[in-house]
């Protein structure tokens, strides 16, 4: 909306940082409910033959990688875990690194849908659906790695407390079992959250469906949703409850993952800041992945007016903030390793920075702490190439963070006689690459066949959704009267366009 020229007040020009005016969440002069519906529903409604060429190309590559993953899994299961580079003393190699990496990425979705919902960050509506989908697919990738890491995958059900002929139960005092509960709870609750948010939008697709297959498919999954206000009332309350439940859940999941490391006595693993530090790192990597996915997606699918530069700007800031939190944890860990006076602990940290994995450590520090500092500048946050680059280096950096934590500590344990070095095998590498195939295959299918943006939620934060306060004019026009200088007289309450 361009009706307000901040310069007209005689002050400096603030751009869209003008504190007197909340920027609109949907860009464009004539955007209304119908145009949002059209923009979002239009994507899955394209006929199969007319699918976007870029999409098909990406999908083919992803399918190829998925095939690689399948081959590697088959090779692994038929041969045994010896095909990995895991050795003595580095029993946890890439599989665990990849697990933590993917679980971490899976945190942004629920963070955006739950935490930002509770803190009324309405801009989240444009990206939360895609982020939640990303969460679920990332958790699928994550769950796979410990699943195959157990060696005998055909008895993976032993992870669960099921009565069995051996009269044995799993060990609930082990953090690895907490992981089973945390990750499976997280996966299922995220799925429920994602699906519940999608019900009204699936109903939109159902009502617009032109062929029988879509009518039946969307019809069944939209559960007969009518948009009844009595339903909305319970739906909104349920959404709020789910958000309130998912927030501590997000915190707990990566905390539990961090407990896998931190409950041990291994130097470099056993430190109390691990739980919040892992959570911050997870959000950090998750936001990086959201940016990596959404910057191209908005370009290809014509969603630039819904996922605006403002959205990207805010996500870049969160990326930087969480990057700083991670940096804080690095610094405090280092300081306490010295302050604590325990020689093993201080050695572990000196070894990280200057030992034979120093290269990995410095990749981690530069990608996670140094590069994101570019986002202090608004120019950088607005440059999509820079945003893409930083989001990708952040993902690389966060993978290396898990690598550094897992491998450096294990390879230099208490006993110098059992020190070792870890080198991945080709199976390790192809498997990790293949997991991206799984992730992108699922994500591309989601982009193509499901509502990518939470239409109902976007509509509810558009100015039209708040009516015109009883006067007869409605729609866009009425809300352009941003309050004049707050000079102590009567003011009109500005519409709640964008509450940060």
């Amino acid at each position, binding site marked *: 909306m361009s009706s307000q020229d901040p310069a007209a007040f005689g002050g400096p020009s603030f751009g869209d940082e003008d504190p007197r005016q909340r920027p609109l969440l949907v860009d464009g002069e004539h955007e209304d409910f119908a145009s949002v519906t059209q923009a979002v529903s239009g994507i899955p409604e394209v006929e199969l033959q007319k699918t976007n060429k870029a999409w098909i190309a990406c999908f083919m590559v992803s399918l190829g990688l998925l095939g690689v993953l399948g081959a590697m899994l088959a090779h692994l299961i038929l041969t045994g875990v010896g095909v990995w580079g895991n050795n003595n003393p580095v029993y946890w190699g890439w599989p665990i690194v990849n697990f933590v990496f993917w679980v971490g990425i899976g945190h942004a979705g629920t963070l955006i849908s739950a935490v930002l919902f509770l803190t009324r960050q309405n801009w989240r509506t444009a990206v939360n659906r895609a982020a939640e989908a990303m969460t679920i697919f990332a958790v699928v990738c994550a769950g796979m790695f410990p699943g195959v890491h157990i060696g005998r995958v055909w008895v993976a059900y032993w992870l669960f407390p099921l009565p069995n002929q051996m009269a044995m139960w799993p060990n609930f005092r082990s953090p690895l079992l907490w992981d089973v509960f945390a990750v499976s709870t997280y996966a299922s609750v995220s799925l429920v959250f994602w699906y519940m948010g999608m019900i009204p939008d699936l109903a939109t697709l159902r009502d617009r469906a032109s062929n029988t297959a879509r009518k039946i498919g969307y019809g069944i999954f939209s559960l007969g949703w009518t948009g009844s206000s009595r339903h909305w009332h319970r739906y909104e309350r349920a959404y709020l409850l789910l958000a309130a439940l998912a927030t501590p859940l997000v915190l707990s999941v990566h*905390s539990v993952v961090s*407990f896998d490391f931190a*409950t041990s006595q291994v130097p470099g693993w056993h430190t109390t800041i691990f739980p*919040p530090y892992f959570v911050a790192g997870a959000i950090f990597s998750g936001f990086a992945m959201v940016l990596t996915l959404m910057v191209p997606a908005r370009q290809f699918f014509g969603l630039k007016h819904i996922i605006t530069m403002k959205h990207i700007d805010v996500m870049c800031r969160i990326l930087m903030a969480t990057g700083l939190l991670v940096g804080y944890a690095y610094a405090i860990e280092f300081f306490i390793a010295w302050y604590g006076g325990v020689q093993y602990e201080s050695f572990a940290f000196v070894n990280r920075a200057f030992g034979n994995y120093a290269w990995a450590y410095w990749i981690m520090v530069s990608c996670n702490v140094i590069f994101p500092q570019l986002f202090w500048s608004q120019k950088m946050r607005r440059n999509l190439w820079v945003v893409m680059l930083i989001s990708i280096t952040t993902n690389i950096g966060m993978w290396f963070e898990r690598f550094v934590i897992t491998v450096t500590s294990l390879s230099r344990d208490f006993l110098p006689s059992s020190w070792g070095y870890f080198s991945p095998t080709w199976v390790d590498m192809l498997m990790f690459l293949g997991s991206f195939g799984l992730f992108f295959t699922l994500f591309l299918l989601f982009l193509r066949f499901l509502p990518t943006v939470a239409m109902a939620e976007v509509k509810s934060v558009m100015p039209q959704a708040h009516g015109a306060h009883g006067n007869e004019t409605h729609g866009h026009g009425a809300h352009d009267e941003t309050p004049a200088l707050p*000079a102590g007289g009567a003011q009109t*309450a500005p519409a*709640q366009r964008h509450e940060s």
Partner: protein
Amino acid sequence: MHGPIEIPSRDQVVARDLGGIAKASLIAGLVGIGVSVLLGMSDMTRFGHSMLVALMFFLSIGLGALFFVLLQHVTSAGWSVVVRRVAEMLTGIFPMMALVVVGLIAIPALMGKAWIYDWLSHDWVHAEGEYAGGEYRGLIAGKESYLNATFLVVRLAVYFVIFIGLSRFFGGNSLAQDDDQDPARTVKMQRRSGISIILFGLATTFCSFDLLMSLNAEWFSTMYGVYFFAGCFWSSLATLALATMWLEKRGQLKDVVNEEHYHDIGKLMFAFTFFWSYVAFSQLMLYWYADISEETMWFNYRIWGEWNGFSILLLVGHFLIPMLGLLSRHVKRRRNVLAAWCVYVLLFHYVDLYWNVMPELVNGLPGLDPAEVGPAFGLIDITSVLGIGGLFLYGFLSKLDGKPALAIGDPRLAESMAFENI
């Protein structure tokens, strides 16, 4: 949605006639400190620890308020504008707290008095004789380059320069905005808030390491800064709500603040009840699980011994009860009920700090085991709270006196007043 919002005039919101109360609290504070000194003459260690609990209690409220202000700027928040001024004024306590720190910690440290921090005593660090319990304290001797009087004083000075500087910058700009109503000030504060929050985070963390964690110089925890911060924000929200209610009753914030804002403060308080518990649990559980003696000893004498009951009190009172109590939205939206919970929160923040500080009273002294001594709450603890509380109130009220209790120049004031929860 409401109709047009009436922005109050400056006259309506200026907090007048606070000078009297401020003076009274200053006198009460000085009397409290004086009595504490008299009571503590015979046992300066006890005096020091009691005063430290009170100091950290009030300092943490100020720190939490400072974080509140920074947080609102860094997120360009709208809802909180009506209560932000109160928080800004709460950060005005830092000069008074700095005086206490100078008198209680810096000067004795430079004089080499190990009343509070036993590592200040050179004998204690290096003694291999009976004073150190017969053991060479290798864990402490190694950190002498950090834990020494000069460096401590330098660090404390840096922390307080940061705290006072941030408080003056954000408070000052906000006050200046009352007069010129320049939105550019908001933008400026938002831009500076990022770096400020980094400075705040580091200063608070190391402040908690220096003033609290080093009470047991052998013990360490990377989580400690976060733990202290969680308590800071929790207690400052309670103080903020109470101060706002008081100003509302006095008339300065009448028809400006409503239950929607209290609801939000209550929600944050609830969230930080959970956050504190999360941090406290993680810290305890990780040390319990790994079971390494130099880490568990700190918890050992708190949990297994005379402090056992106190630890249970903390668990129940700091986590379970407020968790259930603050769950309901009706609690958060009723001023009287919320006020009661705020008082409760402050009480248990004190309990938390007491639990952190007091077991260290006898730690390291020959022949005394904290697990066997146990809590001994006494008159000196009360007078210390009165003393430093008086200075706290003086700092807050004298800063607020004659100034608007509402950021009337803030461009988002109307948004804040019209704000409604979902």
